[in-house]
């Protein structure tokens, strides 16, 4: 018999026995001054009787949700979920990819070095014009670069240090950034170089802890943020109003990525609770979650088709999760790699996965075969952020050595 049904039966019995016994007690002349019991006389409405009756009704009406029963149900559901996932695990990704030609030698070099930040570079984003890059650093500066010429086009000084998140608007007319100030601010970029950008600043998001990541949705009008307070939120840029909030992480949320536009209104987030969650932007509901990493997840990025995503973590591995199979399908790791991966991104076709690591290197992985194809040296401190350009011709990495490097 279903446990819930059992619970119901027990509760009903309890109510019956309890009510009957109280009724009998009330009828006993030496215990109670009333001559008629509760159940025998529905009009007997003294406060004391009402109290007792209410207590009994409350006990009977409460669902059998004691902590212990809920916890056992949660455990059984978790094992059931694992079983369901395991049933469909008939083959490994690298087995399916065995017959594909192996990738040749890659020659990727630093083509540009963007110098100008006074402290650790924490975040970067490309503009849709494939040429401009916005980057933010620990000293509070946000700089917009022209990647072809390495010129600085704009520079803004934020009122806070540790600007951990920055994003370029799809139109290319604004940038958003935030960090220890717990806010996400949008700065419209003007063509007039002399204009003080800080004057036109617009505060959009308000969190109760640091801002870890931000991203514009398909338009300049909405922005998605994640924070150290464990939540993500969707905001309207014009009014600053929160349109939707996403609760479910048990610790700081460190990263997020929006699904490629063809595949709908979802985004994935990763946090310090070792969990990555896929959310429906319209309902605020977490639709899938994955918990196979052994440490904080620093970066998540969707596969170009939108059917999978990769995550990089402090446990020195990058993992690929397929959304339709609802499980992890590949792990990119080597015994020689012991430092955490801070940032990951895919090449245009999804065949290559670039990972920036805390041991100052960038590892390039063959997504299908699971092997490493190249290791890139150049940075003099840990690589904190990495993004492939929108047309896939190059990728840019930012590091704690105060520089950004463009590789092609």
């Amino acid at each position, binding site marked *: 018999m279903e446990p819930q049904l059992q619970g119901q039966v027990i509760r009903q019995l309890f109510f019956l026995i309890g009510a009957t016994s109280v009724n009998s007690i009330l009828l006993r002349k030496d215990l109670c001054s009333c001559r008629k019991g509760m159940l025998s006389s529905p009009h007997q409405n003294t406060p004391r009787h009402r109290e007792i009756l209410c207590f009994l009704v409350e006990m009977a009406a409460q669902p059998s949700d004691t902590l212990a029963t809920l916890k056992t149900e949660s455990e059984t*559901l978790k094992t059931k979920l694992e079983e369901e996932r395991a049933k469909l695990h008939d083959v490994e990704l690298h087995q399916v990819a065995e017959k594909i030609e192996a990738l040749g030698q890659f020659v990727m070099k630093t083509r540009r070095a963007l110098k100008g930040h006074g402290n650790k570079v924490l975040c970067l984003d490309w503009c849709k014009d494939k040429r401009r890059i916005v980057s933010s650093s620990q000293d509070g500066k946000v700089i917009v670069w022209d990647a072809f010429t390495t010129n600085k086009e704009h520079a803004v000084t934020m009122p806070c240090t540790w600007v951990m998140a920055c994003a370029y608007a799809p139109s290319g007319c604004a940038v958003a950034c935030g960090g220890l100030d717990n806010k996400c601010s949008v700065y419209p970029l003007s063509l007039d170089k002399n204009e003080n950008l800080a004057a036109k600043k617009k505060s959009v998001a308000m969190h109760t802890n640091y801002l870890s990541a931000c991203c514009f949705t398909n338009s300049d009008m909405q922005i998605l943020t994640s924070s150290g307070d464990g939540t993500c939120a969707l905001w309207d840029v014009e009014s600053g109003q929160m349109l939707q909030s996403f609760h479910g992480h048990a610790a700081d949320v460190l990263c997020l990525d929006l699904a490629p536009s063809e595949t709908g209104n979802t985004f994935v987030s990763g946090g310090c609770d070792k969990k990555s969650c896929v959310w429906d932007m319209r309902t605020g509901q977490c639709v899938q979650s994955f918990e196979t990493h052994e440490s904080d997840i620093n970066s998540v990025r969707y596969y170009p*088709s939108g059917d999978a995503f990769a995550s990089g973590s402090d446990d020195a591995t990058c993992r690929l999760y397929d959304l339709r199979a609802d499980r992890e399908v590949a792990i990119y790791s080597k015994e020689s790699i012991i430092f955490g991966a801070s940032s990951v991104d895919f090449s245009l076709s999804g065949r290559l996965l670039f990972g920036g690591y805390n041991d100052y290197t960038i590892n390039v992985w063959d997504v299908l075969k699971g092997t490493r194809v190249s290791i890139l040296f150049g940075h003099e401190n840990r690589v904190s952020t990495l993004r492939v350009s929108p047309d896939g*011709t190059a990728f840019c990495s930012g590091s704690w050595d105060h520089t950004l490097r463009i590789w092609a």
Partner: protein
Amino acid sequence: MSNNNASSSSVAVVQKAVKQLRLEAKIRRINVSQAATDLKNFCLQNAHKDPLLVGVPSSDNPFRPPKSCGLL
């Protein structure tokens, strides 16, 4: 009273977790073999368009310097 509040809030937390797990258990899944094949096909179909994978001639790539020397 406070004891009741603490226990009722932790009950609420576990209730939420159970509700979430029930939702996740219900979703429809496909075989890994099918998912992996789709990933592989996507990669192969788009491989020729991927500049970092196949490499583009230096003249097309704005970041790579052209072979001819500027002095000549």
